[in-house]
């Protein structure tokens, strides 16, 4: 499998490690009133789609950047790759 890194171009999947669903970016506020319920959902509840899935990959054997990869879980076709940093900033995180 080849992942088309937004900065470095096509890189072999051997250089990457997989973390999981890209919703991990949306970590709840631990100080909020409903934090226990929010963290329960955040930690344990995942969609498991047969089809398009957005997921976090880490370029460990490369520039150490985190990527959000959109992959079809049935065919492994990758349709989109973004820097997780850009995705997080867009969502108002990490500022």
């Amino acid at each position, binding site marked *: 499998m080849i992942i088309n890194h937004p*900065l*470095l171009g096509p*890189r072999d999947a051997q*250089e990457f490690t997989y973390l999981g669903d890209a919703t991990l970016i949306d970590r709840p506020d631990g100080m909020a009133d409903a934090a226990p319920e929010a963290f329960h959902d955040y930690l344990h509840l995942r969609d498991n789609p047969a089809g398009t899935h957005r997921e976090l990959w880490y370029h*460990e*054997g*490369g*520039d150490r*950047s985190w990527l959000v990869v959109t992959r079809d879980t049935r065919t492994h076709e990758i349709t989109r790759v973004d820097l997780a*940093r850009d995705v997080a900033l867009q969502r108002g995180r990490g500022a």
Partner: protein
Amino acid sequence: MPDLTPITPLGGSSLRTDTIGAISIAEADDWALASVAARAGQLEDTLTRARKLTGLDLPGPGGLVAGGDWRAWWMAPEAWMLATPLSASEDIVAAVKPALGDAASITEQTDAWARFDITAPVGFLERLCNVDPARVTPGTATRTVMEHMGVVVLRHGDQAFSVLGVRSSAGSLHHALLTAARAVA
């Protein structure tokens, strides 16, 4: 004070050079290294200050530049490695930090890396790692993996490369390079 004797990355008392056919692999320890990471929102300031210090424009993704006493290559988004002759600047942080000030975070890296200067056709490196000769042209720096070890491959010229790996696994990296050289020589 005990009288300590410096050793090379491979643990010897002198630097090792291996020549196998047309391929030469030379252990090298004459660069002082420091990583430069721009602090949040200070990218432009980092670039300007680095230019004033080194005369170089810090390169974009995958880039390697050299001029005067300095080399710089891209390591990660908004992070670079600077190299300068060890003889001129044994304490590279003392040389770099005053110029970059609070714009960037500097980490001394000199003894963290083992470097091998290689003269070989680019096909030699294809044996070992994911370098695509069409993309890895002179003036590129590629971070990739060789036999499960993270490395940086610098291409200086047509047949001139440097491979930098983690110093604690210098022996394994050297073994991988020698094995590949014997296979293609």
